[in-house]
């Protein structure tokens, strides 16, 4: 009985193991798709929310903020901003009131000159996000 550690077997384990875990990952992905309807708040995914998401993307908000913990860590988490800022009016008011040249010495959000429609869409998007089932993350209202 000879002890062996062969390249051929190492190769088999690489290919076999990778395929095995890829298939497992696909199986879990499939299950995730079936579980989403219960938690992704898709029933509130309106045209307006989709428009808000587009505005979120096309102004690179993720370049400063986090959304559900992902993004830059320069500015507050926005997954629960709808609740923290007291609803749509709080959000719209905050965005609209940013000074054009920033606040001296402080981190400042740019003035994006959004229309009323755009502001409503952004608020709707953040409301939709805040109602997703995120396993009760963030831990508290401060995000």
């Amino acid at each position, binding site marked *: *009985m*000879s*002890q062996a550690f062969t390249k051929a077997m*190492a190769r088999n384990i690489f290919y076999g193991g990778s395929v*095995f875990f890829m*298939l497992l990952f696909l199986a879990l992905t499939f*299950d995730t798709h079936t579980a989403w309807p219960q938690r992704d708040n898709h029933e509130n995914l309106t045209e307006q929310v989709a428009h808000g998401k587009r505005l979120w993307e096309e102004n690179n908000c993720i370049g400063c903020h986090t959304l559900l913990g992902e993004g830059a860590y320069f500015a507050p988490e926005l997954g629960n901003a709808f609740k923290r800022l007291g609803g749509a009016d709080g959000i719209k008011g905050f965005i609209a009131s940013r000074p054009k040249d920033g606040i001296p010495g402080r981190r400042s959000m740019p003035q994006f000159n959004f229309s009323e429609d755009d502001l409503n869409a952004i608020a709707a998007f953040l409301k939709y996000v805040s109602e997703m089932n995120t396993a009760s993350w963030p831990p508290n209202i401060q995000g």
Partner: protein
Amino acid sequence: MTAEAAIQQQRRGLAVPRFPPGDLAIWIFILAELLVFALFFAAYAFTRMQHIALFDRYQAMLNRDAALINTLALLTASYFVMRGVVAAREGQGRLCARWTWAAVGMGALFLVVKSSEYAHHLHAGINLSTNTFYMFYLSLTFFHFLHVILGMVILVAVALKAGRGGYTPEEHTGVETGASYWHMVDLVWLVLFPLVYVMK
């Protein structure tokens, strides 16, 4: 001769081997798999501590008879596999192939029984998100289920090669490699069965 080959030759001369049977590469894989299962088992036990009533209630709804059949099937398969290794060692390739095919048959029995259990759960609308117990039960058993399939694929490859006379008493590492992996699949189930189906 490279230094490594010299060492290997030296090892062969020793009566007691330093390494387990089969290719060392499969043992690295086996260790990784065992580690994953160990973490899953510990996670099950400690999560159960916080949900004892829930776990006991749903554990009682599992089909222990099916689990018994499955345990016996896996143990028998392991026994067959081991007999196949002995046959290969004695240079009886055809016999080795027969034992290994028999083990594959036992693996298939496991798959059939386990699938019927899954069909039952599916019919009852149970999935990974139903509750914490089913999350663990389905995760653990399904992860193991996939290992049975992988083990069978390996055994089929071994059986085919053995049937072709591809192993000799001197060189049958492939049989031992496949056997070691299969025994690992069996080993994991031996802990899984009491933990998930019986202990409360």
